[in-house]
């Protein structure tokens, strides 16, 4: 049962992060491979605030969201000018840079050994120590983020973002502001990333750079691609499915030392297979 709770909690957190990635990559077409870095900023801000008792959980989560909003807008800035393939390279650089900062800014992040002992989340003076409480918190925030994503997709803003993905020049010629639309999407994706990161920090009670490296970004992209880009359902299916995989893998007889590598290999194979055979994912549109 404990395993189920922690699986579902983690999956709910990854749904929030997946929404962030899906919004940028799927809806607006800003192909970011640095979403784990944003996720990391969210986790570190909450981790730092709680470990050093700067503020409580709720303000820490708001700070995480705000920090990620700002950071995501700044790192997405190149995509506001250059579009398409060039941004992937820029984004790759941002991811490497972020990992370097997480690993070396020891005063704030604890360096490679990370920030241990992040206290559990607390709401209205109650510490959420039980597994089901964490799950409820994660599911509640996941539901809220899903609702926001849904409202966004069906609004004129959602249509504008899709149009920006299809043809920026035509959007501008229709008298709409492309730059403003992209900044708004980056900000919103940042908020989702911050909320997800903040939840992650209190749920694992430990924050270290390895969760927010390039593999983390690839995992998020894999979730979006496998689940289905551009749709809400896809963003929900992907994390629940992919996070169940390690459990499935334990049923196969492979040594634990090879398990991590096997998982990475499987993610890679999945990405390729989906791109070739089902580019729209399980419940999405073609990327």
């Amino acid at each position, binding site marked *: 049962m404990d395993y189920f709770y922690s699986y579902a909690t983690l999956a709910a957190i990854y749904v929030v992060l997946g929404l962030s990635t899906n919004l940028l990559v799927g809806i607006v077409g800003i192909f970011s491979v640095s979403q784990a870095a944003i996720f990391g900023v969210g986790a570190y801000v909450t981790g730092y605030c709680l470990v050093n008792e700067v503020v409580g959980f709720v303000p820490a989560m708001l700070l995480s969201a705000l920090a990620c909003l700002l950071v995501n807008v700044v790192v997405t800035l190149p995509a506001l000018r250059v579009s398409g393939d060039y941004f992937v390279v820029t984004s790759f650089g941002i991811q490497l840079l972020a990992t370097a900062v997480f690993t070396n800014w020891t005063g704030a992040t604890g360096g490679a050994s990370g920030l241990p002992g992040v206290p559990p989340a607390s709401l209205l003076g109650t510490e959420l120590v039980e597994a089901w409480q964490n799950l409820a918190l994660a599911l509640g925030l996941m539901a809220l983020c899903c609702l926001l994503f849904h409202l966004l997709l069906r609004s004129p803003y959602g249509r504008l973002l899709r149009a920006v993905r299809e043809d920026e020049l035509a959007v501008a010629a229709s*008298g709409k502001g492309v730059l403003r639309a992209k900044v708004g999407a980056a900000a919103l994706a940042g908020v989702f990333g911050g909320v997800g990161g903040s939840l992650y920090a209190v749920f694992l009670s430990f924050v270290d750079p390895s969760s927010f490296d390039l593999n983390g970004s690839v995992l998020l992209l894999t979730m979006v691609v496998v689940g289905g880009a551009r749709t809400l359902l896809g963003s929900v299916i992907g994390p629940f499915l992919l996070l169940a995989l390690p459990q499935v893998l334990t049923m196969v007889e492979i040594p634990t030392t090879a398990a991590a590598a096997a998982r990475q290999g499987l993610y890679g194979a999945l990405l390729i297979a989906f791109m070739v055979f089902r580019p729209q994912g399980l419940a999405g549109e073609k990327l």
Partner: protein
Amino acid sequence: MTAYLEVQGVNKRFGGLQALQDCSFTVGQGRITCLVGPNGAGKTTIFNAITGALRPDSGHVAFRGAALSGLSTQAIVRAGIARSFQNLRLYAELTVLDNVASAIPGQFGEEPLGALFRPFRTAAGQRRTRAAAMDTLAHVGLADRAGTHVRNLSYGEQKLLCIARVLATGAKLLLLDEPTSGLSGAALEAVLGLLRRLRDEGRTQLIVEHNTRVVMAVADEVLFLHQGHLMAQGTPAAITTDPALAEIYFGGVL
């Protein structure tokens, strides 16, 4: 004839190429003005200069007496000028209705805060936008295709949709870049009929056109552009029968 749109002494150089050279002309209100000339004459460049996509090196453009110089594309669309593209630039993965709806100005919830925190007002606005988009589609004869994805449209339908998208901006002056190219038969007639209908409703049109037959069929006025400069201006009959212009256009064979 009042100068609805006035282009005055516009110059634009791309490296070694003088794309527009002291280009001046006027467009009369409520008329169809066809812009003709050989490839590379600067027809699309002058569209870019009028819509603010391109900043001229010198010269100015005025619309209904107000200077457009220095205005953003957005501001120029708000002022009432919108364009279509030679290579269509439709949103291929969006529905026909969404292609048109996306161009309608002043929608509530077209930015994140309104969309997320005023969902009911956004939804009400969305209904109005859809209704307006349907009206525009009905106007160009695409109402029955509203739910279709653009990639499933015929080429003729895509050309009509381009005009619908320009109309949806509410523009008074339509700049149409080759709205009939690649069309023949019924599809061509559908676009020509639409252009005439729009004129009868009082929309002013400046149209880049290659097909002499089309020019004869719809134009009130023809502008002949050559090497970025206005060579001649006149009625379709006068321009198309001028041997000197035919010499430039067809290389002497007519």
